[in-house]
């Protein structure tokens, strides 16, 4: 039974976009984690400036 290949595109697009959105959400946290930011604190190699 041959499926209509054209109709498959919609399911594929859902996966692509959900994946991209999930990535964007994860990216924010990942970026901060790699930069070594814990809280409003250090950003990179500079020592945290607190008064």
């Amino acid at each position: 039974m041959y499926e209509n290949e054209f109709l498959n595109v919609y399911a594929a697009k859902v996966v692509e976009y959900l994946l991209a959105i999930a990535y964007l959400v994860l990216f924010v946290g990942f970026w901060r984690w790699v930069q070594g930011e814990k809280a409003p604190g250090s950003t990179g190699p500079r020592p945290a400036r607190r008064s």
Partner: protein
Amino acid sequence: MARGESWFREKILMGMDGRSYLRSLLTPFNLLVAAILAVGVPVIVYRFTSGLAATTRLSQVQPWGLWIGFDMMTGIVLAAGGFTIGAAVHLFGMHEYRPIVRPAILTAFLGYLLAVFGLLTDLGKPWNIVMAIRYQGSASALFEVAWCVMMYTTVLLLEFLLPAFEWLGWRRAHETLMRSMLGLTVLSVVFSTMHQSALGSLFLIAPAKLHPLWYSPYIFIFFFVSAIAAGVSMLVLEGTLSHRIFRHRITGSEPDVEKLQLGLGKAGAIVLFAYFFLKLQGVAEGRHWDLLFTGWGAWFLLEIVGFVLVPSLLYGYGARHGKVGFVRAGAIVAVLGIVLNRLNVSIIAYNWNRPDHYVPSWMEVVVSLTLVTMGVAAFRWIANRMPILSEDARFAVEPDEGRAPEKDRAGLLSPLTERDREERTLPRAAAGR
């Protein structure tokens, strides 16, 4: 009630009493706006009461006309200055361009609202536009355009709220928003890239209907690159106009607009030069060199030589020799070229091989003109009241001391104002100010 009245007088009437305000409205510019609206608004109403057949010259073979080609497509590309300068300043760190970011964001925001109103006027059943959220036709380039325009208009609204909150004096909201600016700027570039290119992708589905010199599998790249060129050029034009017209709204030192324009000219020269060769690549890829010798070929060459290569050279010469006049001339030609390109793709070179050609009706032209006029009037209204040409000094925060610079309370300069002020979002800034 007195308090509300005085807020209204200060914020809306710019400090005048009712009668003086009304008298102040009698300017030649305002009369022109009023005249255009007097004709245009009834036409818009008529479009909605009588339908598309009565007001447009769209047909079964020409489903898209001026409102799509100009209001939507040209409107969106000319609003590209927002994301380009936002990225330049906030991501690439070119802080000297800070003074033109806010006017650019406002122009972009109003430009997108214009494009959306233009679209709503063109849609057969505009109330069904919400269906795009409910049902996802994700195989469609128009679906991508719709979503990314929705997302980006939201981003623009948020970016516009920054000066709006300063105007309203809402500090807490302002600080919260400030913290999101980096993320908003990144999103603005992401969404803009997607929909500026998707507007070109719209035509991928109709290869036989668009003339081969304009149709290319890479049309979406052409649209994106030309969007950057359009953004840069509109920034130059804006710098010339708004910094002159709204000079009275600039607090603190006046930015060296000419110097900034020379810098923009340099960028414009490079982008347009690359775009010119990209278009030639499109011809090469399609192996359409022979078509350059036809009538349509001449029109195509006019577009890319006269309105892409020439402004590139004007920009380059102006930037190299410090002659701002050339840069400004280049901007005008470049903007006309972008408009020409969008109109070519959507209505002129579209259906090029049909015997009769679409010409917009006078009502279509009037509606488009009216929407642009409303946008310009809105820009004026906002720029005259909100901190667009300058940022509100009371919202600036001293990084080391954590309090607003004292001098700015009286509207005088603090030493920081002369070099771009650093704005911080220290929680301490809110306390006691």
